[in-house]
């Protein structure tokens, strides 16, 4: 075996061990609830817990609303920037990166000050308002992933020519976006959607400080008070995230193929 190949395998094995050993240890620990034997007791307790079900459902609904809001904001914005305002692209890319730089706790404190019950926009004065604010906050947090996914999708098609081809055939803007652009970037949009879903399911800071009954604070609460259940929950959350990632991979196989190829 060549020495280059040998070291490549060493690096791979060390990397895989770094990733898999804690995961396997967590799985093993989550199965030890019953003394002396391995069992799924911790999983049964977690999955049977009414708070697990309600907080998980809450986060799933919040994720769906976040995805819809994100798609409504990002798809037309990214499309318009590619079509008419390419000079604004660096600025928009910078803005979409801000949620990675500004910690969620700073954003949420800003929200609390801006949208408190005494402010002109009292989002936090009602449950519905606080839920809406949480979704808006999540849409902000997912902006870097959603924008990049959609922009990458748009890069694979000739946005300008397809738009002009549809226009000259009589199509208006809603037809162009709905029937030409969106179907061709749907897989990219879904990638962004699953990333958003994974972020929202595990998010703690915003949900906790806005006092929302979400899955993130529930995870933290269980982790602080129980021994085996947090390990089971960590594995469940991990499975959900990896499930989302796998779906992105599977769906990307169905992406419309580019029509441009030589004779």
């Amino acid at each position: 075996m060549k020495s280059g190949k040998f070291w490549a395998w060493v690096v791979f094995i060390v990397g895989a061990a770094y990733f898999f050993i804690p995961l396997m240890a967590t799985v093993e620990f989550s199965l030890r609830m019953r003394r002396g034997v391995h069992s799924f007791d911790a999983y049964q307790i977690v999955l049977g817990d009414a708070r697990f079900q309600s907080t998980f459902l809450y986060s799933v609904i919040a994720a769906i609303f976040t995805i819809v809001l994100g798609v409504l904001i990002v798809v037309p914005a990214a499309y318009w920037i590619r079509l008419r305002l390419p000079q604004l692209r660096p600025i928009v890319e910078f803005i979409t990166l801000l949620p990675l730089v500004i910690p969620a706790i700073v954003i949420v404190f800003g929200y609390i000050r801006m949208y408190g019950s005494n402010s002109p926009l009292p989002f936090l004065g009602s449950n519905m308002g606080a839920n809406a604010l949480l979704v808006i906050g999540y849409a902000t947090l997912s902006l870097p992933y959603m924008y990049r996914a959609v922009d990458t999708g748009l890069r694979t098609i000739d946005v300008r020519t397809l738009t002009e081809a549809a226009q000259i055939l009589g199509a208006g803007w809603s037809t162009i976006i709905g029937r030409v652009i969106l179907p061709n970037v749907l897989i990219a949009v879904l990638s962004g959607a699953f990333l958003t879903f994974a972020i929202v399911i595990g998010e703690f800071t915003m949900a906790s400080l806005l006092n929302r009954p979400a899955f993130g604070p529930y995870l933290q609460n269980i982790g602080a008070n129980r021994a085996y259940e947090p390990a089971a929950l960590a594995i469940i959350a991990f499975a959900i995230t990896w499930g989302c990632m796998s779906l992105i991979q599977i769906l990307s196989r169905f992406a419309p193929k580019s029509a441009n190829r030589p004779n």
Partner: protein
Amino acid sequence: MAEPFLSIQHVRKSYGSNTVVQDFSLDVEPGEFVSFLGPSGCGKTTVLRMVAGFEEPSAGKIVVAGKDITRLKPNQRNVGMVFQAYALFPNLTVAQNIAFGLKVAGMPKADADKRVAEMLEMIKLPQMADRYPYQLSGGQQQRIALARAIAPKPKLLLLDEPLSALDAKVRVSLREEIRSIQKKLGITTIFVTHDQEEALSISDRIAVMYGGKAEQVATPFEIYNRPATKFVANFVGTLNVLEGKVTDAASGKVQVNTQEVSLKGKLNGSKSGDTLSLALRPEAISLDRQPGHDTSLSGEIAEVHFLGSVIRVRVGIGGNTVSLDTFNNSATPPPVVGEKADISFSSGDMLVLH
């Protein structure tokens, strides 16, 4: 004269201080096939895009069938367009692509299906209805794009360098197909190209463009044989340009190197002592004196290129070099470089470039 179907009137287009189209005017008759021919950056595509509605003229107006469409949006113009990059919708099948414009116009499905079938027959690809664009060759994609553009029965068809992305063989067959479909449907067509052979072979008229202006608008025969400007003469076909000096304006005598040529009636106000550019097409020149050739010049064979059926010979005449083509004849060996040679031509074929 009949009312023009398309009338482009004094159209100008500027981007800031950069004027890309200057005072462009053109009338196109119903059913006519007009090509915009010119080098990159001459403004031909910009004029086409203004007719399509993708660019708004800075001045002037565009009238189609008596209606001013200058400020109409592209989707309100009822114009069909074929793009260089095909622009088929990758998520739709061939049939769905062709039906797109019909569906947008609200045509009932049964009628749309019938029209799609007609279009597929017309472009001779009836078996391709369920394929996706990525499953087709470039030539097939462009034929589908043509069918898609024609399906809604547009008033005007715009072709923006539709053959540029195709290989040479497909290009020739598709340009003939485009012309035959256009003639059959009688649809008024504007074709943008930078390929002179394409423009000469399929157009009713050609507008040769340069620097945002139409240098000459005429039939292919006129453009080739009677170019109006030096640019047209140089851009279309191969041209020999000889520098000459008027020695006697009254009798049309012009001196080329040390030899004299008679160009009576062609000097258009030139005075004795003026220098002129004289042009001759290679096919107007012979190495031996032909019947009807009234002028000859002596020179020396500078280059000989054997191209199979044709031999291209370059003859040096003083400071000028003249190219001419002779047919290959197995009984006659080609000229030899360095040999003395007399070229002959009809003075009537010589153009004075202004």
